[in-house]
């Protein structure tokens, strides 16, 4: 479980996160949702330690991530997998080298074992025979899947996904969403997804935290979000003509 307790973060005296306390549970896909500029990306970056927090604490299964030393933080990070918005695959490495990289860095596995593991992870994300391709030769959806394969190659306890569907068509988005959800349940990972895609919310939102103007405004799941009276939530959920029509039906 990942826990943020009274987390605040400011940039140039502008408070972006205001005293946020939220828990992300193991084996569930936990979604952070909110409008652009609401602070959800900053919250995710604070959770993984890319931004230092001003106040509060962040715990990974009881280990205080915000107060431990740099070396201890590196050890916790070895248990984290992250899927970035653009994939963040290493351009100079091919698909196989990208997936194998965390294993080469932190395990004593032999080359054959690493390649076997890479092939397993790539197969798990429905990618085969792409091992020798470079990121520039992949489509957007393939890049995301390779990034997921890389993120899970070292058996992470925690998986963070920053807008996994951005730039993808609806059909590919659902494939990616379901893949993340399946992996989360299969390996009992604590998954945190940052998104503003309502399809993802309805498909895989086991737990949802709605961030509004830097505050944790609402918590619930994919069922309760459709029936809440909260005005800001409804403005967000029913922002499009399509969702308004579906609500009318």
């Amino acid at each position, binding site marked *: 479980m990942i826990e943020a307790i009274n987390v605040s973060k400011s940039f140039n005296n502008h408070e972006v996160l205001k005293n946020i306390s939220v828990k992300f549970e193991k084996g569930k896909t936990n979604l952070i949702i909110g409008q652009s500029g609401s602070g959800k990306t900053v919250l995710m970056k604070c959770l*993984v*330690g*890319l931004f230092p927090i001003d106040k509060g604490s962040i715990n990974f299964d009881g280990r205080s991530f915000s107060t431990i030393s740099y070396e201890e933080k*590196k*050890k*916790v*990070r*070895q248990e*984290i997998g*992250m899927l*970035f*918005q*653009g994939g*963040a*695959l*290493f*351009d100079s490495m091919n698909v196989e080298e990208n997936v194998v*990289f*965390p294993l*080469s*860095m*932190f395990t004593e596995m032999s080359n054959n074992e690493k390649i076997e593991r890479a092939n397993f992870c790539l197969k798990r994300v429905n990618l085969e025979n792409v091992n020798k391709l470079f990121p520039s030769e992949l489509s957007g959806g393939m890049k995301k899947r390779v990034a997921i394969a890389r993120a899970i190659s070292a058996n992470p306890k925690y998986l*963070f996904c920053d807008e996994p569907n951005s730039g993808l068509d609806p059909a590919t988005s659902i494939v990616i969403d379901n893949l993340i959800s399946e992996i989360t349940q299969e390996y009992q990972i604590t998954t945190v997804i940052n998104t503003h895609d309502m399809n993802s919310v309805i498909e895989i939102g086991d737990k949802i935290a709605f961030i509004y103007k830097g505050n944790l405004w609402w918590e619930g799941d994919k069922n309760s979000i459709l029936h809440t009276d909260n005005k800001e939530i409804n403005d967000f959920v029913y922002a499009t003509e399509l969702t308004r029509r579906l609500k009318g039906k």
Partner: protein
Amino acid sequence: MKILSEVGRYLVLMKQVFRKPEKQSIYRKQLWLEMDNLGLDSLGIVAIISIFMGAVVTIQMAFNVDSPLIPLYTIGFATRKSVILEFSPTIVSLILAGKVGSRIASEIGTMRVTEQIDALEIMGINPAAFLILPKIIASIIIYPFLILVSMFLAISGGWLAGSLTGLVATNDYVYGLQYQFKMFDITYALIKTVVFAFLTASVSGYYGYYTSGGALEVGRSSTKAVVNSSIMIILFNLILTQLLLA
């Protein structure tokens, strides 16, 4: 104040760069890769520039030494001195600051803006050390080799130009090259080269690492890296010359 802040940030980055590597075998692999990328890839341009500059230095010397009182071997002697003391270590390092410096800054800067550095950090890897340390060590190893090649080619270029144009006979040129030869000149040139290699790789790495924004900023970082590496080379050239030769 801004300069002090930049120097402080550079020193903090260097502290991070020289932390213990997570896995030495991976860093060694990176080192070989960087030696190829930064060093061997530069061999062509170093060779072309060295041959032509050596030729030009010799021809200019020959035209300036037109008094019958000055022996012709002075041309070889002056060419050797210019090439070993200044042209190869400093001018070639300045050219490499342009080629290697922009490459380092744009490579690391692009990794920064495409979140590849964040990805390394989240994996529990020290990105500053992983990206910059192999480049610094590779430069320190490969630059002296490039400079020795440059010295050889520049002197050969001078000999070719002198003999083909008939300005200086081979015997005189070779005698001039050997005349009052001091091994310390080479040592001095190599000491300067190692310092310039460190400055180019580390300063360019610094500007690449702290790139923020997009493609435009990567270009800006690359330009800053080249300009500031060149300024540092010129500054340290003066300091080292004063320290080692005065």
